[in-house]
């Protein structure tokens, strides 16, 4: 098995264009589902119903939300830096959707790969775009010209540096076991055993870091609606604010998909080949359920607690995990 993905399998340009359109269509169809699912689940977790007024069972709620957000006035504070203020929400959405391109929903079937693109550098692409996504928060918070936004942006920066290394190291164990950076090869390497069993520590670290990456409870410090109004999003309104929410859900989906790819065996599951994408989606939704479950359960950690967790617990643990994995991989 090669370290980088096999580059001899090249698809026609028109296929790639169709794929990118499909990815956009799918994610913009999934995000409204996720919002209504989250609100309904949060309701159930709190012994109430959640939205059930708009449409049958409240399923048209996201439509109502979207119409409300889109029809709002485009507003810019006087202190804001216009260009950056406008472009920051676009950055987060763009990086979220771009990362989705590398998620494999199935292997190559009949000359057609069920993924956007099998990038040779694989997971590095994910890390690159994951870090750029934080520029969206940073620039948005800084360019708003408000103190709350600025504090949120600073927290986003501090959060980024405290967990991103641990996240990379957590995935490194799985990468070493598979011997490849390509996500397709990593899933193929899991046909014997899902990496959640040999890499359980790595899985836990990735999970905690993933919650921090998506800026969701209990690590929603950049937003911190109780202390910072809405953090980096304080000065945003209308669909620009909606873009941040959209990006949060896309990132949630991406992190779940990466976790499924690396630790839950991707498309592997019982049944014939055409069930592969269904397995991936089922596993992803199990993860999304976990995300919402944790949000309904855990209170926000303090700022210094996040830092000490990232640097004092996750980083040594991840390093240890990588060392042990490296030794075991070399020996066997």
């Amino acid at each position, binding site marked *: 098995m090669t370290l980088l993905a096999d580059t001899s399998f090249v698809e026609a340009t028109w296929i790639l264009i169709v794929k990118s359109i499909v990815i956009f269509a799918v994610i913009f169809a999934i995000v409204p589902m996720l919002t209504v699912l989250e609100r309904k689940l949060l309701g159930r977790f709190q012994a109430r119903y959640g939205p059930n007024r708009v449409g049958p069972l409240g399923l048209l709620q996201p439509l109502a939300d979207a119409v409300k957000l889109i029809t709002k006035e485009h507003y810019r504070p006087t202190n804001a830096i216009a260009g950056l203020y406008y472009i920051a929400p676009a950055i987060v959405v763009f990086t979220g959707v771009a990362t989705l391109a590398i998620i494999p929903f199935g292997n190559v079937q009949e000359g057609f790969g069920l993924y956007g693109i099998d990038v040779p550098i694989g997971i590095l692409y994910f890390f690159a775009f994951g870090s750029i996504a934080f520029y969206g928060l940073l620039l948005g918070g800084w360019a708003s010209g408000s103190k709350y936004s600025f504090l949120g942006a600073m927290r986003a920066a501090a959060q980024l540096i405290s967990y991103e290394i641990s996240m990379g190291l957590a995935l490194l164990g799985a990468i070493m076991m598979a011997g490849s950076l390509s996500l397709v090869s990593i899933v193929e390497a899991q046909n014997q055993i899902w990496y959640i069993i040999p890499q359980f520590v790595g899985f836990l670290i990735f999970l905690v870091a993933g919650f921090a990456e998506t800026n969701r409870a209990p690590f929603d410090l950049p937003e911190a609606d109780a202390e910072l109004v809405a953090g980096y999003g304080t000065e945003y309104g209308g669909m620009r604010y909606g873009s941040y929410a959209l990006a949060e859900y896309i990132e949630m989906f991406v992190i779940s998909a990466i976790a499924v790819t690396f630790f839950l065996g991707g498309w592997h599951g019982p049944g014939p080949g055409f069930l592969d994408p269904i397995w991936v989606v089922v596993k992803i939704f199990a993860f999304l359920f976990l995300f919402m*479950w944790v949000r309904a*359960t855990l209170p926000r950690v303090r700022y210094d607690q996040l830092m000490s967790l990232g640097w*004092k617990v996750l980083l040594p643990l991840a390093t240890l995990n990588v060392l042990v994995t490296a030794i075991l991989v070399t020996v066997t």
Partner: protein
Amino acid sequence: MSQEFPYLKDESVVAVQRGPEPGGVGGAYRAFGETLRGLKTTFARIIEGPVTIQYPEEKTPVYPRFRGRHKLHRFEDTGLEKCVGCSLCAAACPADCIRVVAAENDPDDRVSAGERYAEVYEINLARCIFCGYCEVACPFDAITMGHEYEIADYNREDLVFTKEMLLAEPVERTPLRREGE
């Protein structure tokens, strides 16, 4: 202990049981366990199901002694009004929201069973505090508190209920709590 707090008697100092400090292996283990416990707690809410009462569709049943909107009563056999216009309810009313104007009964065309009857009987429900004193004061049980609580309206004038409105059989919009419910 006694060196630290010389002003306290030894028996009044209670050692507080604390878990391990945050950080370190003990703290991490404890945090992990507590996290799982929290997840269990919230998941139990899903299994229990919502406790919400979806108000306009579902209503909380009221107790039989619930004090809702007033009703005026007639005798079931003769159909005459029980109210004789004595104004005791108006006198008892702490919010002063009842207005009674009494008139003599015409012996050929009786309105009430007594000597007099209420020509005007108005309750201003915008003022009423639903204390039930009128019910207690009434010597003929002519006025009682009903179970109706959906009285909101758009105009204050519409909240002044006249005798005809109070005598009319109200639409039962409020479920009554059954025995043992």
